[in-house]
Structure formats: C-alpha cells, structure tokens
C-alpha cells in the first residue's frame, strides 16, 4: 500500500491515472469508517489534502463553482454560506462539528449514499458535476452522476474537481428527519428550490430510494396548478396534493433505522412544509 500526497491537481490526476484502483481521500469521514468496519481494504491511497485547486471557490455569472474538497463548515456558516440556503442547511445537519470541519461535498458525492445530505440539494439545484482526468474535463448533470446505492458515474481515473450550482431567485430549503435532534443519519429528507424566475419548484427526496429521487410528477402538477412566479400562499388542497404526490414518488425500504411506511409519510409531510415555507 502506498499513500500519495500530490501537491497539485495535475500531479493528482497523473498519479490516479497510473493507479486507477487507488482510493481518493478527502476528509476521510466515510473512508476511515469503511476501513474500520473492513468494508474495504485499502490498497493505494491518494490524499487530496494538498491539492489546492480543489479548495477553490468561484463566483460565476450564473452561479457558483464550488471546489470539491471545501469542507462543510464553509457552507454551513463560513465564507460560502451565502451561495445556497439549502446547501447551508443541509451542511449544518451533517454529523458533528468535527465531521463538518473535515467532511466534503466531493466525498458525499463520491460515496453517493441515498442518505447523503447534500445530494438532494444538488439534485434540486440541477447541479453540474465537474469531473477531471488527464484527458480533460467533463461536466455531468447530477442526475446522470448518481446511479444507485453508493454507485456513481465517476470513472476510475477521474477526480470530482468542482460542483457548479446556479444562483436562485426564490426560497430554498432543506429538511431532514432523524430520531435525534442532531448528528443523525437521515431517515427521510427533502430539498425544495423555488426558482421564481423560471416559475418552477424543484423537489428532491433523500433516504427514500436507492438514490436521490426528483419528484417530477409533483413538480409538474404544481406548475400546472399554482402560480410559481411569485411567493404567495397556496391553498391547503394544493399543498396537500403536492405532499401526496411527492410521497407517492418515494421508494423507501424498511430497515433498522425506520420503516418504509414512516419514510413515505415523512417525505410527504416535509414536502408540504417546505412548500409552505416557500409560498407565503
């Protein structure tokens, strides 16, 4: 086993290209747990700590480019908490202060757990994932990036270098149900983004399917049944129907954390509550 500690993105991409089976290590908050539980035997490790390019944040004309290895803390209440309210709320719900000081969105994407807290936000924002290799850069929609339970579209010589998200005019919110008031893995979560300029509301659900679920049916129904160009209160019937449709799009399972029935119920409630927060 070799541990590489490249000092630049170019060097990192080269090392990765030569050792495609190597494990990339960002905050290590998933990887170290996997090693401890022996879910994975480390072969070679490439540490991303000293790759400055992955820490870079940029404001673009239509949005932001977030370096993949920026820790949660910066989005929660640090320098970049302004870029997305929902991302900041989602970041706050991740683990404990220690985890948020080191864990990264790149790692959340790399692991691609259905319970990953930033993933519903990236889905609802229609984020673009920037993947780099020695051959260049490709941009992939978040919807094409997430493939299934802990499966994503990254190929072995690629590094997630950045996440591109749009600037949104309108409400955005994230809500997560766990059995404890903090530091808990999601048993159901939802992100709602109201894009007033596009008269559209996007809703994505976490922990209720093999991967994040975008509620296209509920979204479409809402566009047809409400004026989404402004934020004005909706009728109870509209809100309830939206929640019902969202719940019906969930594909939850029963496990030791919760039951499928509860999860379905919970995302329906979250969808309604987020919609009410958006439209008032």
């Amino acid at each position: 086993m070799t541990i590489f500690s490249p000092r630049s993105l170019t060097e990192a991409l080269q090392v990765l290209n030569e050792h495609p089976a190597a494990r990339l290590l960002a905050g290590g908050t998933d990887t170290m747990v996997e090693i401890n539980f022996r879910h994975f035997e480390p072969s070679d490790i490439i540490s991303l700590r000293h790759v400055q390019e992955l820490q870079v944040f940029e404001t673009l004309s239509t949005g932001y480019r977030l370096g993949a290895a920026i820790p949660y803390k910066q989005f929660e209440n640090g320098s970049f908490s302004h870029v997305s309210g929902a991302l900041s709320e989602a970041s706050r719900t991740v683990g404990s202060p220690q985890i948020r000081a080191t864990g990264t969105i790149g790692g959340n994407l790399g692991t691609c757990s259905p319970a990953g807290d930033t993933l519903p936000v990236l889905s609802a924002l229609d984020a673009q994932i920037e993947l780099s290799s020695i051959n260049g850069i490709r941009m992939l929609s978040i919807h094409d990036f997430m493939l299934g339970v802990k499966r994503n579209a990254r190929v072995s010589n690629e590094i997630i270098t950045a996440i591109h998200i749009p600037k949104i005019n309108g409400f955005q919110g994230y809500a997560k149900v766990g059995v404890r008031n903090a530091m808990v893995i999601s048993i159901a979560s939802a992100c709602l983004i109201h894009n007033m300029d596009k008269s559209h509301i996007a809703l994505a659900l976490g922990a209720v399917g093999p991967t994040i679920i975008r509620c296209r049916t509920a979204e479409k129904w809402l566009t047809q049944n409400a004026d989404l160009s402004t934020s004005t209160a909706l009728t109870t019937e509209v809100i309830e129907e939206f929640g019902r449709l969202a719940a019906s799009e969930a594909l939850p399972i029963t496990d030791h954390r919760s039951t499928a029935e509860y999860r379905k119920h919970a995302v329906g409630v979250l969808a309604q509550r987020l919609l009410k927060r958006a439209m008032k």
Partner: protein
Amino acid sequence: MSTRTTSKQREVLGVSALRPDGLAKTQGTFSFSSDYTADNMLWGATLRSPHPYARIISIDISEAIKIDGVETVLLASDVPGKLTYGLIASDQPVFASEFVRYMGEPIAAVAADHPETCRRALDAIVVHYEVLKPLTSIEDALNPNTPSIHPDGNVFRHQHILHGDANATGDIVVEGEYEIGMQDQAFLGLEAALAYPDSDGSGIELVVATQWLHEDQKQIADCLAMPKEKVRLQLGGVGGAFGAREDISLQVHTCLLALRTGRPVKMQYTREESFFGHVHRHPGVISLKHHVTNEGRIVKIEGTMKLDGGAYASTSSAVLINGVTHIQGPYKCPNAVFDGYAVRTNNPPCGAMRGFGVVQACFAHEGQMDKIAKAVGKSPVEVRLLNAMEKGDTLITGQPVESVAPVARCIRETDALPLPEPLSLSAGTMELPGGSGRTSELHNIKRGIGWGVSIKNLMYSEGFDDSAEARCTLGDGVATLKFATAEVGQGFVVLAQQIARTVLGVDVVVLDRIDTNIGSAGSTSASRQTWMSGGAVDGACRLVRERLFEHVAHMHGLDPLQLIIEDTDIVDTMGPLRISVSEASKGVKITQTFLHQHRKTEELDENGQGNCHVAFAFVAHRAVVDVDVELGLVKVVQIATAQDVGRSLNPLALLGQIEGGIAQGLGLAVMEEIIMQNGIVKNPSFTDYLLPTALDAPDVLFIPIEEPDPQAPLGAKGVGEPPCISVTPAIVAAIRDATGIDLKRTPVRPQDICL
C-alpha cells in the same frame, strides 16, 4: 480565642469538592484502561460467532497459527480451569465449543504482534457451523415444548408473589400492557485490559476497567485454575460502566493469552465489539391489572413481568427479583398476586444496567398510575399523592419501608418547580423537535406534561453478604486511603477524600492504588458505594482518629474522650489545648482497617415474602415535552425532579448523577434501543444506536430532599440509579399527554406517534 482566616473553603463533606481526576479527564491526559502499553507486549483479539444459534462442527486454527506474528490461538480446550463463568450461575463458556448461543459469543482468542495481525488471524480461523433456528421470543422460551437451548433450561427464574388477600377487589379495574426495548450502557471507555504474567507462569497481574475487582479475581482464578491470591488485579482507568462491567468480558481471555505466551497481552474492544462483549438491559413485557377504589386508592395489583435474559444467566435472576419486588411502585398496596419470569433466548445476554429491573417495573406502574388517574377523574399528581408510600408501609413482599420515605415530599417539591415558558413565537428551529433537521414549525408542535415516581432498593438483596473494606493511614498530617472500590466515573475518589478531611481534619488525602491488595469493596453498582465503601472509609478514619486522640491525650495527660476535631485542629473541649492535626501526627503512623457491612437481608419464600432489600430511595420526575405530532419527533424541554438523597455530600457530584441519569433515561424513552431480528443485532455502532446529544438534553431543575437516613453511615442514600428510573415513564407520559396516544412501548419511535 484565636481567629483564623481560611482563604479557601475546606473540601469536606457537604462541599462541592473537585475530583482528583477531574482536570486530567477534562484535559484528555487521564489514562483509561485502553491507554496502557507494556514492553514486549502482544495484542489479543476474539473470534466471535456470526450466528445467534449454531452447533460448532469443527474449528480449524492451522492457517491462523502459521501467520507471521501470530503467537498463539486459544480455544475452549486450552482453558486450564473451569470452562464457564458467571456472576450468579456459572453457565457461560469462556469459549464456545459445542454450541454458540448468541451472536458475538467468543469462540477463540489470538495473540499477535499487532492488532492487524490479530484481525488476519481471526479471518484465517475456519469454523464449521450447523446453523440452528434461534429461540428469540419470550413466549417461545416459556413454552415447555420448546427444546432447551442450554443444559440449565430456558427459564432462569420464576418468582411468584402472593401478598394479602388474593381475592380482594376494588371498584374499578385498570389494565395495561407495557413493553421495554433493549438498552445498552454505551459507556465511552471501551473494554480494555493488560495482563502481565509472572515470569514463572504461576501467577498473573491484570490491569482492567471493571466494576468489581474481587469478583473478577474469583471468576478468573477459577477459570485459570489458580489460587485467588495468584491473580492480582489493579483497576485501569474506567470510562463509565452503568452495569456493563459487572460481568466478565475480556478478563479471562487476556490472562489466558498472557500465560500461554509468557508476555504481556493487551486486549481492547472496538465499539462494535463492545456491543457484543457486554450484557445489556433486559427487554421485557409487563401486564398489570390494578384494582382501585372509586377514589383511586390501590387495593390490589395483579400481573406478570417477563424479561428476556438472552443466552446466559448473568444477573437475570436478581434483575427479575428487583423488578417484581418494585412493581407496586412507591405506593401503598395491600394486596398482590404477581408472577415474574426471566428466560433464556438466543438474544444477547442481558444483565446489570443502572436501575436493574426497576426501570422496567417503573415504566409499567407509572403507566398504570396515569390510567388510574384518568379512570377516577384525578390529576396524575393527585392520584400519586393519594397512594404515596410512607415510612412503615410495606412492599408486596411484606417488607416494611423503614427510615426515610419522603415520597409525597418528592412529588410536592417537584410539582412546585416552575414549568418552562411556553414556546415563544421566535423559537429557533434548533429548539423545536427535529432540531438541526429543521423539520418543525411552531404550529405543528404540541406540548405535554408527564409524571414518573419511583422507589429503588439500594445495595444487594436476598441475603447477599455485602461488605466493603477500607484502610486509612495517618502520618505527618497526611491521610492515605486504600480501598478496592472501582472508580467508574461516579466520583468515589473525591468522596473518600472528603470523608477523610472531615473526620481527621487533614487537608492532604492521598489515594493508594485501587487493587486487590485489600479486601473487597463489593461492586460499584446498586447505588451502593457511598453507603458501603463510604461507610468503610468513614469507619477506618474514625478508628484512626481514636488512636490519634489517644496519642494526643497521652502526651498531654488528658482523657481522649475530651478531644474533638475542629476544622484542622484537635481541640480539648474541657481545656485550652488546641493543636493542629499535622502537628499532632508528626512522626506518628497510625493505620486502621475497617470492614463495613449493612444489615442482613432475607431470601424470598415461595410466595415472594421476605425482607429481601436493605434500604430504598425515592424520586419524582416531571417531564415537559414538545412533540411534532405529524412527524412523531420529540424534544424533551424540561425535567423537574426532587430526589430523596438522605444527605448531599457533594452537591456538584450529586447534580452530575442527576443530570447524567436523566439523559440516560431520556435515551430509553425516545431513542436508545438495540434492534434485533432473529437474534441478529442490527445496529452495533453509534451511527445507529443513538445516544442523546447536547441538543437532546433537557433543562434540568433539581431539588435534593435531604432527610438523613439513620441507617446510612453518612446519612446519605445512593443517588446513582434513581435519576434514570422514573424519568423514562415521565417522558413517555408527557408524549401521551401531548398526543392522546396510548403508547405502550419504550423507546417511543416516530411511527408510534404519527402512523
């Protein structure tokens, strides 16, 4: 008269003295048992069963032993002495050889040069099993047609209780069913031990985090086939216990590996292994039927308590007796017909945990009290006050409750504590149920209030010969204390110092090593060490003081009975002599040992009658919760509590026990549960076994009820267990109050509330 100025309050009894280990623990420099290493040390590790129930067909260690760095692999056939151990019945194998009876049962142990080598060795051991259908339900275990999963049978104990008139009836019958999930002690300092073999292999020294050095010593010596004195134990730094360190875990394995290799061996569990390596709180089902008058007075209780003890006996039989003998709660109850069963299953073994059987009983009797209140149109407080036990009342075992029983006072003083402000419109999401998940909004929240009151026995019961020894040496103004009392975080180390300062008028109190070079102190459990070891230290210090007075009296031609200690001076009550203790003890060395015993208790007869307990403590809890009814999420806002403590010896340490116990009881109310499916543990990690965080911890309002108990050596009752007992039913009652749902089970899950 001389005037003296004391710059600092002396840290005597009654003062919030700081613990001698406090700073090191806060700064992270304290050595816990897992922090020790030795020269030339090997690491040990345990191979465990993946199956809850299976026959072992063969075990092949040949590949494991070949691995570079592996020094030895031990199986049941390598145990030189007794093949089993256990606190009450010796029914648990050191290593399984024929059958494994629970998931995680040890089969082999390896010693190697590195933990990773150990892991590889464990992987290389090949065990062939014939997997059997596990026995996992209490009802199946009680069914006489179910084949026995152990030669000792499937029922650990049945206890019948018949008290008063079995045919008595009241005006109203109130019935309820209650269920309690399996809680884990979840101490933070994982199991760890370091064993040093004697060079000739004839003895061993073990440094271990435990609750009871001498009981470990006895069980280890039996398994090693060594005389007890050849097995010397020293307490390693203990990071919490809560009952989970009463049973043997890695003690015998570590010693066996060290003796076999002739090298120091260290064993240390991971968090996951810890879930399999120690016993848990008994899950159980309780049916209760109360016959009450129209007014709400209890006439008779009937019912059953069934506890799942898991695969091995541990303390199941004692836990059961605690449960059934406390089933009436802190209330007058003239008649009772009750049956308790503790059974064996292929679930993880259960044993001691803070509250020891009374937690289960209390959850049921407090649920009943609220039902009675409703049935007779009274408030929860009124119906509890109406039935509150008083000094002289009896348990359903016929045992009178002596000394101090301030039940009504606990309830009244708790009731008088202020309720929290209603949720303000500006409350942030963090203050609402769901916390950082930002799920709730003000208008979704309902507030509820609930009550729980409990009685808990202190110390061991049923005729157990329970004693504690301590030694005090005084010289040159310094007192040195020696005892084998396990300091597990409760703070006996500071209490012992306070006692010596108070009795002897010294300021410097040195604590000798905690080990088996003195008689047993008994277990640090059952809320007993302040009473038992406190009594022993107090007794030893008093004997030393007598000798010191004799010495001073002799020097000054006085009667020693004239002398007293005032602060740090010896004072003649009939004359002018005043001499400081350090002056008086210059050049002398006085050593005294004291054995403290409590009064004898009796066994129960076939009708469950007998004075089986030593003493009792009482507590009341009032819980205020906010519930997001639609999502089933709960935030415990406030716990108010008044507890019968006898005497507050260290207010700060006392508050620590109160607040910690409340957090642990809160865990059982709303989140802590080991989840099992067919004997498989599904959540052996802190990712999924959820403990309360700071955001889950409620405000605590606490009033100590100080009515010194004349039977207690320092007037003080044990305070460790009561805080976690009635807080669970209080919280669940508050959730019932907020939601109107008849919740039967704890912990309450979101789906129990909203679906």
